[in-house]
């Protein structure tokens, strides 16, 4: 364990190395049932981050399917196209449909991990991860429905701070 390479920030120039033209498509264009997840990343002053990178991951696809990557725009916005994952067995429990999210930005020395859940999933009521989160913060993990998809805002700090995980 002592040999593990420590994390460092992506810094403000991540756009030279990380974005891909097809990065926001976690599933190929035209995939049946595709949904769009959009959101804004904001800091402790409520200001949008124009220099963050949002990555999403959901298991079960082939190759890079299920992986999405989108830099935020000048308004802090990101957009990922994917499909809604199924519920999954997790030991003796069942995890509700979810997407893991990694947030990278200048100022973050380690990437932050959160999860997107879906507002209309009945499995949310018994999801072990949601159950371990304070009830008054649980809704920061649950996307809201929009036309053609969902909205999931990420608040790094302050009012409505998103729940982040130690994984």
């Amino acid at each position, binding site marked *: 364990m002592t040999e593990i*390479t420590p994390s460092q*920030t992506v810094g403000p120039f991540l756009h030279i190395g990380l974005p891909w033209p097809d990065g926001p498509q976690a599933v190929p264009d035209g995939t049946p049932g595709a949904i769009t997840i959009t959101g804004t990343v904001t800091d402790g002053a409520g200001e949008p981050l124009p220099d963050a990178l949002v990555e999403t991951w959901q298991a079960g696809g082939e*190759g890079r399917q299920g992986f999405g990557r989108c830099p935020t725009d000048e308004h802090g916005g990101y957009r990922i196209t994917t499909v809604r994952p199924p519920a999954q067995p997790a*030991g003796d429990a069942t995890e509700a449909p979810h997407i893991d999210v990694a947030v990278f930005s200048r100022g973050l020395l380690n990437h932050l991990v959160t999860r997107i859940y879906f507002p209309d999933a009945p499995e949310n009521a018994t999801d072990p991860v949601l159950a371990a989160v304070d009830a008054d913060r649980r809704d920061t993990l649950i996307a809201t429905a929009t036309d053609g998809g969902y909205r999931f805002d990420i608040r790094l700090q302050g009012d409505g701070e998103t729940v982040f995980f130690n994984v």
Partner: protein
Amino acid sequence: MDQPLFESVSGVHPPVSFPDYRSNVLRAPKHPLVVLPQQLTETTAPVFGEDRIGPTDGDLTKQFPGEPIGQRIIVHGRVLESDGRPVPNTLVEIWQANACGRYRHVVDNWPAPLDPNFGGGGRALTDADGRYTFTTIKPGAYPWGNHDNAWRPAHIHFSVFGRAFTQRLVTQMYFPDDPLLPLDPIFNSVPDPHGRQRLVSRFDISRTQPNWALAFEWDIVLRGSRPTPFESGEDHDD
């Protein structure tokens, strides 16, 4: 199916909150992190193929019609897990400033020249033994606004996926004997001095190419998986 559980990283990484790095102050969460048990989503990762790699992605000196200015270097090493097992076929992405310390980026406008023959981005897949190699130009140091007369030590940004979401790592590689390292809050955010040294590459005369390029070796070590799940709920790095 048994999924591996990845070891604790307690004390390895910088703390969540580290105000010496000024940009951290409004961006670090205030609430403690919540423990997320490693299940299927956390113990799997995307798999990338050669289609992700362009023909000049491994040689940053060949991406434009002319040669970039600066010291030509070879940066190579292995991606490993902490038990020494290599991580084959994993995507390694790099980005860096040019020899003058200037990034080809809209928000970098300090008065050092851009190089028309240098972009600064590279990409590679590790081979069966976890090895990667890039040819590039040694990046310069550059000033930043963190504190009075602040300069970032020369570095190359690295992004690595590994074989599980829990292994995802973005970090920076530094160069040996850089006098700016002890002054750099980003470098110093790593709590363990030995951990800091693991971010510093080693000059490698054996891979240095005569009449062509100096070589630096740098291994990247990701969290390993461990056989027993009994500690999966422990606290870590904040």
